[in-house]
């Protein structure tokens, strides 16, 4: 080293991008980001691999009844799974590897299909998301961060994501297929549930929300469409890290505009003075015709890019910050709908719904013609309330409405409705006949657009657990 503490061969190099083409710098940045992502994933994968191995070795060491030969076989099997996973990383899956069985759902950015992987015959749900729409709506940052965590989760309460790939126009997500449909479809079919049935679904939702929160996430858009039913009739939350619904509703400028237009229609001051107005709306609420209209439009609303704000907590609209308790407001609204037949703030327009949620103390009404137990009404009122008074998850579990619920074993008991399925591709629990105008096969990329959109870097994803099932 010389006098200034630098090594003798220390060189000052004048960096300049003069002389490079315009896209050299962004491309260099792109290559750098890709490599950073690559090493991050490589290190994580090594750690996880190690954990899987150590866990199995420990388990086997502790098992005194198993023969050494069988232990050896189990370790070899782990090696096989790890090898299959390494192979999967080299495997390029694309649209051509899947065949559509049926279109089963529609979301804001694309459709959901039941697909069959052509070589293995395995069945999956494939969701398509239009990249340009997602970019326009500024969904990417959220979607990516949340997907990362959910992709890692092994929770039985979250729909598993197995694989994702992309072309220049779409992201494709390959998930486990839950053949029982969703809670929205079930509510459309049954209108209302008994308190016992409601207790089952809401209790499972409490555990699912708790699981999501323990992963460090807030769902923000729990609604019946996102509560899916597995083959045994138990629920899973749809992979909301990708479901993106809440982001568009979460867009603050969108709400700002909504707020302004709502104020234009009826200013809050007029509203507050005019009690007749409140009564009028109350009348609308219990009018069977109006509810029928709402129900008829329910699915259309689910398909639209605006989405339904019916279940979103008021603090989310108000942009003053919120915590994960907002998800329990949504749960209260869903519980209300299960028992009453429509959500508490349902209206003919989303503007009106939004207004009612903000002014919830004036609009939360339990209709006279529906009987609710004291406990049921009480817990709903303790969920649909201001965040500081809302019940915590422990308080919810100890509320008298849930008396007798087995919180640790509920997934193992028989569900109230168990789907009766004739085959692994049975789609009778989905409103497939209502899904017109959806191409049977995904269209894929139209042009040979470059595969260099860095916004979607890191979307391509392969899950370890599937390699053991010969994905």
């Amino acid at each position, binding site marked *: 080293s010389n006098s200034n503490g*630098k*090594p003798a*061969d*220390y*060189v000052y*190099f004048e*960096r*300049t*991008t003069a002389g*490079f*083409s315009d896209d*050299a*710098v962004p*491309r*260099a940045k*792109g*290559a*750098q980001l*890709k*490599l*950073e992502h*690559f*090493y991050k994933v*490589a*290190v994580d994968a*090594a750690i996880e*691999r190690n954990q899987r*191995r150590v866990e199995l070795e420990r388990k086997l060491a502790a098992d005194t009844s198993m023969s050494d030969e069988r232990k050896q076989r189990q*370790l*070899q099997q*782990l*090696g*096989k799974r*790890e*090898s*299959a996973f*390494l*192979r999967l*990383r*080299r*495997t*390029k899956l694309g649209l051509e590897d899947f065949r559509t069985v049926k279109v089963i759902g529609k979301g804001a950015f694309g459709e959901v299909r039941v697909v069959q992987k052509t*070589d*293995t015959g395995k069945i999956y749900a494939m969701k398509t998301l239009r990249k340009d729409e997602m970019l326009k709506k500024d969904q990417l940052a959220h979607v990516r961060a949340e997907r990362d965590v959910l992709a890692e989760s092994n929770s039985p309460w979250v729909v598993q994501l197995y694989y994702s790939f992309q072309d220049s126009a779409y992201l494709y997500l390959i998930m486990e297929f839950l053949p029982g449909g969703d809670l929205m479809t079930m509510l459309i079919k049954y209108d209302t549930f008994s308190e016992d049935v409601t207790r089952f679904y809401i209790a499972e939702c409490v555990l699912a929300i708790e699981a999501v929160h323990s992963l460090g996430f807030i769902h923000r858009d729990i609604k019946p469409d996102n509560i899916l039913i597995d083959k045994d009739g138990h629920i899973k939350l749809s992979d909301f890290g990708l479901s993106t619904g809440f982001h568009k509703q979460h867009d603050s400028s969108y709400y700002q505009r909504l707020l302004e237009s709502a104020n234009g229609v009826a200013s809050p001051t007029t509203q507050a003075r005019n009690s007749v107005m409140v009564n009028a709306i109350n009348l609308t609420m219990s009018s069977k015709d109006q509810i029928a209209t709402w129900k008829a439009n329910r699915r259309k609303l689910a398909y639209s890019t605006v989405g339904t704000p019916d279940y979103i907590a008021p603090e989310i609209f108000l942009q003053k910050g919120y915590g994960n308790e907002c998800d329990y407001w949504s749960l209260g609204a869903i519980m209300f709908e299960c028992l009453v037949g429509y959500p508490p703030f349902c209206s003919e327009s989303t503007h009106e719904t939004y207004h009612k949620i903000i002014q919830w103390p004036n609009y939360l009404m339990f209709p006279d013609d529906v009987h609710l137990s004291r406990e049921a009404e009480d817990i709903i009122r303790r969920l649909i309330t201001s965040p500081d008074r809302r019940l915590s998850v422990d308080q919810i579990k100890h509320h008298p409405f849930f008396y007798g619920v087995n919180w640790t074993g509920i997934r193992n008991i028989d569900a109230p409705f168990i789907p009766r399925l004739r085959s692994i591709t049975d789609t009778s629990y989905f409103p497939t006949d209502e899904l017109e105008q959806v191409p049977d096969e995904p269209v894929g990329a139209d042009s040979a657009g470059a595969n260099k959109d860095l916004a979607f870097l890191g979307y391509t994803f392969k899950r370890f657990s599937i390699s053991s099932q*010969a994905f």
Partner: protein
Amino acid sequence: TPTSPGVAKPLYLCSPFVEAALVKGNFKHIVMLPKYADVMEWVAVNIFDFYQNLNSFYGVLAECCTSQSCPSMCAGPNLNYTWINQDRKSVQLPAPTYIDYVMTWIQNLLDDDNVFPTKSGREFSQTFPSTVKHVYRQLLRVFAHLYYAHYPQILHLRSEPHFNSLFAHFLAFGKEYELLDIKDVKGQPGVPVGIGALWERWKEMGILESPNA
């Protein structure tokens, strides 16, 4: 070591660039064969990744690597690699042509399910280890050319920590699985490969340590 007068020490051997790294520490954890896993699968997926990553950096540098700037595939003061053509003759090619041949050849191998099997149940062929050694050797030549001829451009684009780590990982992996011939890294007497000195330097710095050491 004193350098011959008039020849400046290559930038990639100078501080602070020789130490620049995206990945700190040695590569042990990501080079080591996952216990119980198949070594062929491990080598295959790593070759796949090295190819992809090197390709994305070459994609950036390609505009600086033209038949005018690099009329030959040089990698040292007296070293120009030759390509064996279809008539089994050694030919001199401009570096961009040479690299294009290499990358296209490797891409085709990677896409060939007989060489790099992806379908479940399909095995690696007997010739896989020797194929992979060829691949490794050619990838090494691409690295060697980029270091020798394009390092200032890598610096201008602020990519040296990334590129160094990719290459150090490549070297560590190649050494561990005997995919590299030392004489390919260092060159012949009187015909050194530029990156030979880099290899020595990094070994001294301890970043190429064998995972088993």
